[in-house]
């Protein structure tokens, strides 16, 4: 049987924060509803109120200033995928947002919801990690900023407290010399949750050496993370095929260090390696 609750839609962010200050412990926040509505249908949602923040203009802006790309939490995946500033300065996020669910889901689901829901398979998380994303958290008593890696504390867990909501994500804008890749494996292309997803940003010098690499992998670790050992392996080297495979192996070893040997490891190890190799080849060798 469906959950029961009262529905409120504030006219401004301050109204929303006032409401959350009073009722934070008994309120679920609705941004896109693509996850929340599933728990409404099953009756799992036990909140007294649902607060609809989807129309708050304060949560729906994209701004580039002082070298920071600030992306509003209530923007839908469709809006993220098509926004000119995001396509230019965070194209890997635009690309990943265009892979979420289906057209119908992308028209509802939001970036902030994807982050707050904290699914290990969230498609927006690896792109945000390679952009060194920070989460701007608002409450009636003020604002705090946490790195995304700290914000998501485990599968479907965050450090968001009652009374708080995600206002914006702060990204390092991508330098225009960088190249990017987003790769994903799922049962099928649309409407399937990612089995694994990889986001990478890389910069190749004029001499053909790798100047920078940022690599993050989703769905196979309990918390979002950057693959720093693999990044270091490739930096300051020529991106030869053998080196990229070595980096891919480093990632699969990192995965096993995080999550141990599981029944699925036999499948995941070569799959992760293939996916990472594909992302790195895409960036540094122009081949997939």
């Amino acid at each position, binding site marked *: 049987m*469906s*959950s*029961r*609750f*009262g*529905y*409120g*839609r*504030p*006219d401004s962010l301050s*109204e*929303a924060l*006032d*409401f959350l200050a009073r*009722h934070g412990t008994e309120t679920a926040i*609705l941004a896109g*509803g*693509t996850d929340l*509505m*599933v728990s*409404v*249908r099953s009756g799992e949602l036990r909140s*007294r*109120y*649902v607060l*609809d923040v*989807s129309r708050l203009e304060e949560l729906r802006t994209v701004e580039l200033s002082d070298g920071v790309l600030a992306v509003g939490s209530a923007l839908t995946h*469709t809006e993220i995928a098509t926004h000119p500033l995001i396509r230019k300065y965070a194209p890997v996020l635009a690309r990943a947002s265009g892979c979420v*669910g*289906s*057209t*119908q*889901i992308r*028209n*509802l689901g939001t970036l902030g919801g994807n982050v707050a829901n904290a699914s290990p398979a969230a498609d927006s998380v690896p792109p945000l990690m390679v952009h060194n994303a920070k989460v701007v958290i608002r409450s009636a008593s003020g604002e705090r900023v946490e790195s995304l890696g700290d914000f998501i504390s485990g599968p479907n867990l965050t450090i968001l407290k009652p009374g708080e909501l995600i206002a914006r994500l702060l990204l390092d804008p991508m330098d225009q010399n960088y190249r990017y890749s987003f790769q994903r494996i799922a049962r099928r*292309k*649309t*409407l399937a949750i990612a089995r694994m997803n990889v986001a990478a940003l890389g910069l190749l010098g004029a001499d053909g050496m790798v100047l920078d690499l940022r690599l993050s992998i989703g769905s196979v670790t309990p918390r979002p993370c950057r693959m720093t050992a693999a990044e270091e392996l490739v930096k300051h080297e020529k991106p030869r095929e053998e080196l990229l495979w070595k980096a891919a192996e480093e990632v699969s070893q990192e995965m096993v260090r995080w999550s141990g040997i599981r029944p699925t490891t036999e499948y995941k190890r070569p799959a992760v390696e293939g996916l990472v190799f594909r992302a790195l080849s895409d960036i540094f060798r122009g081949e997939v």
Partner: protein
Amino acid sequence: MKDPNTDSVKIRFQLNDKPVVLEVKPWDTALAVLRDELGLTGTKEGCGIGECGACTILVEGKAVTACLMLAAQLDGREVQTIEGVAEKDALHPIQEALLAHGAVQCGFCTPGWVMSAKALFDGESDPTREEIVDALSGNLCRCTGYVQVVNALESLAESAPKSNAADH
């Protein structure tokens, strides 16, 4: 902001170009209200969790799954359902094309296809086959009638060869 009423919520919206005002339960889905309160049963419930697209409607011109929206979220919005697509006695060209190409088997998923296609063609009069497939990839058909659906819609693209599909 006052504490919300936990029994009912009053909503006003434009439904197929006509204003609607009604009281709904705060937890009612848009799909349930369209079907059970307003009698518009053309919008179907397939999976109820946003995976099949049978309940696709247009909100502000965008295709969304009505099962994943609260009715309360329709407040103040422009909503179109399958019942608002045809003009009086004349079917919409999308509907005509689906008929002409035999793109309907059991028909349960068809309203969802029409709405997804309408959102596509309202924004782009000359989509490629790839764009059509992409725009429709959130709609599932258990009778596996995809090829006919895509062919039907491809015939509507501006640059498609103009022929009467019914002659085929």
